[in-house]
């Protein structure tokens, strides 16, 4: 049986990927970010999950507003890296897990979560910017050490799904993963945030106090977050910061007793960059 062994919340700011590609590891402006991700990368290296289920948002690269899915599940064996306007990042194409993804599609739809599916579409920095921090050896190796099941969430064009709906999607994803017969170790990843705004005269807005409160509530009291409305998230964390509802999808896929064992926070420019690790109690999934 497939098992969720933990979760990761992470920002997906595009400059995280740019800093990685330009090898800014020791640049004083970027070193706190690289150091901040290292313990999470080490945990992944040690646990060796087979699959990351990745809640992320597209930035009008995979999809356009002529058809913008609220939730979409990637079910193919591979996804190219999207060209976002400056050429394609020099990282391996995303490796999918079609058997698990197809099972998840079936489970979600039969569970009354009518998700749409996509195959072989290019995926943008919503996935690949944190991925090179989480699996930093993959570029040199030319291959990712595990597969991804990407789940796109619309946070660009309102109506955006409610915080509670994102949490419920996570719960349905947990049921889908746990009903998959093959022994797989799965980590769920929620991306986005933290506080930032990229439109209007309020652009550049941050709220460090709210970010800290969010990092606390997401572990201890996700119900306090699902009770909030999108306008509350926008007021506290900026309109784009409201994308942290994707962390709620990750949290919904974790057990009640999950523990946050690590976090890092860095706010250098316009977007607060955070990473947090959540570990499930209980025995390791059996190795294959």
């Amino acid at each position, binding site marked *: 049986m497939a098992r969720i062994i933990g979760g990761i919340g992470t920002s997906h700011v595009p400059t995280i990927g740019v800093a990685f590609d330009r090898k800014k590891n020791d640049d004083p402006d970027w070193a706190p970010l690289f150091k901040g991700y290292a313990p999470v990368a080490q945990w992944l290296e040690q646990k060796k999950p087979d699959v990351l289920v990745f809640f992320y948002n597209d930035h009008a690269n995979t999809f356009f507003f002529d058809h913008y899915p609220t939730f979409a599940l990637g079910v193919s064996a591979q996804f190219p890296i999207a060209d976002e306007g400056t050429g394609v990042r020099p990282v391996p194409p995303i490796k999918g897990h079609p058997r698990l993804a197809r099972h998840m599609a079936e489970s979600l739809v039969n569970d009354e979560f009518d998700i749409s599916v996509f195959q072989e579409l290019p995926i943008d920095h919503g996935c690949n910017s944190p991925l090179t921090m989480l699996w930093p050896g993959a570029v040199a190796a030319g291959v990712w050490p595990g597969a991804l099941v990407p789940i796109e969430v619309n946070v660009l064009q*309102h109506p955006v799904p409610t915080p509670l709906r994102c949490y419920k999607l996570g719960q349905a994803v947990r049921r889908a993963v746990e009903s998959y017969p093959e022994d797989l170790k799965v980590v769920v990843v929620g991306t986005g945030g933290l506080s930032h705004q*990229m439109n209007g005269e309020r652009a550049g807005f941050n709220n460090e106090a709210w970010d800290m409160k969010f990092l606390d509530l997401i572990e201890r009291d996700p119900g306090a977050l699902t009770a909030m409305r999108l306008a509350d998230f926008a007021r506290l964390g900026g309109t784009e910061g409201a994308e942290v509802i994707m962390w709620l999808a990750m949290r919904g896929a974790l057990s009640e007793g999950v523990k946050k064992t690590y976090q890092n926070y860095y706010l250098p420019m316009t977007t607060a960059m955070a990473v947090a690790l959540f570990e499930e109690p209980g025995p390791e999934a059996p190795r294959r």
Partner: protein
Amino acid sequence: MNPQLEGIESLTGTHLFDLECSARTLRLNRFLHDLAIPEKRALFKASPEAALEQAGLTEAERTMVRNLDWGGLIRYGASFFTLEKLGRVSGVSNPGMVAHMRGETLEEFLKTRNVPGAR
């Protein structure tokens, strides 16, 4: 009014992208989105007026694109995430776009940041 967004109008200087905006700016957003396609990007770089003509933009839209008027384009209803592609093709970074929307120069904006070199 979307009940999830009630009260959002009290956030001064905020322009939410919703279906009403999206319908009104679909052609403009398609033009901006397509700058991520190498052939379209090459055409815009080589001959911006030909690219604007091909996209069938209105004169007001063309003026804002020519002037890289980020604040004006956002107020008009464009999506920041399609505007980013015009930023990249024009050599303007996200902090540069944000500074413009705030009515500041890039230098002024960077002074308000914790780590001005991290861009």
